[in-house]
């Protein structure tokens, strides 16, 4: 049952991705892209990564869609009746080639949930799982790693978001207000 849902989700995500690339109307493309994000978010939940799924749903499917919609508000729909964009064969060949090269790394990955994968047998992982509850008093080990064990990294990420966001606001704000 679960595998059937997973395969259906994968097919849905692939179809939305192809639709995003092929649709001629930018608005339809954005909607397909947000459907893609939503599908990926559900897949994360199936892969037991609800934190990532929540992020994907909120950022990818939610906020990004709105920002894209705002961005295209000044564009116009291309003339003509065709629904699909013509495929550029050279670009397609390059894209397929890139995917083929990247796919070679897939065989090096352990199967999902394998007990002997490096992640599960690693000493650091084991330390987090053994000590996170007592040392940090939080029940979500992900949060324990993010905010306690790797707090310095998280501070770095927060500062990156801060710096990137503020500089973007400054640059765009100057462009808008003159």
């Amino acid at each position, binding site marked *: 049952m679960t595998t059937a849902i997973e395969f259906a989700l994968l097919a849905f995500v692939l179809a939305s991705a192809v639709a995003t690339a092929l649709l001629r109307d930018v608005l339809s493309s954005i909607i397909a892209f947000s459907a893609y994000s939503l599908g990926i978010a559900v897949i994360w939940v199936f892969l037991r990564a609800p934190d990532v799924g929540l992020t994907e749903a909120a950022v990818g499917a939610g906020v990004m869609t709105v920002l894209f919609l705002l961005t295209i508000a000044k564009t116009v729909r291309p003339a003509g009746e065709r629904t699909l964009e013509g495929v550029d064969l050279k670009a397609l060949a390059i894209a397929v080639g890139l995917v083929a090269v990247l796919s070679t790394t897939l065989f090096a990955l352990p199967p999902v949930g394998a007990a002997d994968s490096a992640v599960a047998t690693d000493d650091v992982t084991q330390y987090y799982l053994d000590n996170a509850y007592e040392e940090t008093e939080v029940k979500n080990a992900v949060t324990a790693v993010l905010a306690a064990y790797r707090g310095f990294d998280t501070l770095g990420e927060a500062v990156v978001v801060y710096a990137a966001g503020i500089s973007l*606001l400054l640059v765009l704000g100057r462009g808008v207000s003159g």
Partner: protein
Amino acid sequence: MIGESNDATSDEARTLYVESPIIMATVRVITPFVFTLGLFVMFHGADSSGGGFQGGVIVGTVVVMLGIAFGIEVTRDWIGPKLAVGFVGLGVLAFLLVGVGSVLLGGGFLEYAVYADYGVPHASKYGIELVELSIGLIVAGIVTGLFFIIAAGMDDDGGDFE
């Protein structure tokens, strides 16, 4: 609809905002719930899935929804230009303070346990939640600011920024 204004002649016909009683009523009803969910995800990131980043985005979404329902300009005038940026700065400062504070008190960086010696109950847990909250402030502020600034670019006469 967006993108369908192929033969739009005036700028007024191109504005994104459409006053829809359905959208306004819906947003009015669900906004408090979404806001509460955002805060819940932020505060409960320590005990369930979620955290400051996700919660911050959800809180930012509240402003996005208000903007879509009641007009982006109106919402921006209501919120003001400084609040979002202020949130971002406050979040970074709070995170830094929690981190450096434990160093000042004689521990390592972000060593929450140090605060326990100064009478903070469950110092580690509450410290982590404070950090999550400050991350949420940063993210919510950035989402709101980006939304407003991109929408503002939409209202001018088009063309390149110069």
